[in-house]
């Protein structure tokens, strides 16, 4: 190769490599980032000018048009309480002892960041649709087999499963201390193998 050709070649290779790395890095939730009660995490700055360029680009790809945290706080998890990745072959019990301090909340299930197709067209449960336990708390079962009124389908196609807990008009204490928000436990039940 002629010595002069190294410059343009390395420039193009570097630009392409950097762009590819950015595309790869923004295609999924960074499970290490954010704060919340394990395994849930919320990112400060979503939907606001305070977001970092990486966060902003990631949200654009997997949660575009998110609202700022004074309007909605988004807690997500892709793990159960033991740190294992959520798996469509397993069922999970989500148990909340009480409601987080917010006007309204919902729990949505996603495969590869899209709704999970199912015969009920059910993709979430919410504070206004959920059946309550006798103690005022709530229990949701996600995954197969279908269980109870608060069943949340996870489908049977493998993929990256994400649970998203949205708090609409949250109390200011939520983002001040996200670790203290009473979000449901995510307990793995039986698995089909």
């Amino acid at each position: 190769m002629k010595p002069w050709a190294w410059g343009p070649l390395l420039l193009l290779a570097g630009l392409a490599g950097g762009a590819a790395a950015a595309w790869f890095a923004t295609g999924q939730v960074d499970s290490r980032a954010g704060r919340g009660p394990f395994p849930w995490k919320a990112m400060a700055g979503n939907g606001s000018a305070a977001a970092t360029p990486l966060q902003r680009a990631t949200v654009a790809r997997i949660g575009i048009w998110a609202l700022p945290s004074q309007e909605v706080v988004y807690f997500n998890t892709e793990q159960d309480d033991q740190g294992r990745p959520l798996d469509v072959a397993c069922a999970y019990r989500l148990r909340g002892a009480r409601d987080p301090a917010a006007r309204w909340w919902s729990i949505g299930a996603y495969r590869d960041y899209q709704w999970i197709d199912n015969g009920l067209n059910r993709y979430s449960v919410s504070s206004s649709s959920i059946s309550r336990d006798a103690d005022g708390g709530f229990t949701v079962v996600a995954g197969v087999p279908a269980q109870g009124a608060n069943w949340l389908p996870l489908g049977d196609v493998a993929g990256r499963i994400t649970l998203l807990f949205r708090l609409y008009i949250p109390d200011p204490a939520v983002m001040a201390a996200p670790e203290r928000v009473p979000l449901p436990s995510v307990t793995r039940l039986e698995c089909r193998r």
Partner: protein
Amino acid sequence: MNRGGRIAARLALLVGSAVAGWVIMLDRIPVLATDMLFEAMTAAGARTNRLGPAVVRSARANKVPMANADILARSAMLDLSAGPLRFTGTPPGDKAAYWSVSVFAHNTDTLFVLNDRQVPPGRPVVVQLRLAHQPQPEAGVWDVVLPSPRGFLLVRPTMKDREDAAGVAALQAALADHRLEAWPSR
């Protein structure tokens, strides 16, 4: 320059251009993501500067990643190059668990959010969407200035229970007055 110097210079060029590629791509991804979604929405029948209908969507019809399935969304792809637009809509009161109207720039920056608790009950919300050089609205109209002609308007009327057909129908009826139109009329 000796051999060691040449290698160091080439390495510096490679690393520097990789950093530049990373920064440029992060900056462009929000615009690309918006354009890709606009293409998908257009292919599905949506039209620019038209407020879409309030329909209960299924997994097969939904185009937006990590969308809230409880929202009976009314949305519009915006293009202000021909002039300002005006959104008008009355929050549906207790028929919805939550309602807001929000406006996003082409690069997904949140430009405006107004929810139902921030306005007097039963009164319509009027929002003017314009570019900086376009005329300002009169008093009493929310003024949203977009940095470029393209953007997105999203109304989030939130269903209390998407499986309650009567409740959903009542909410749909309450959203019938929502409209997006050229302002002043062209």
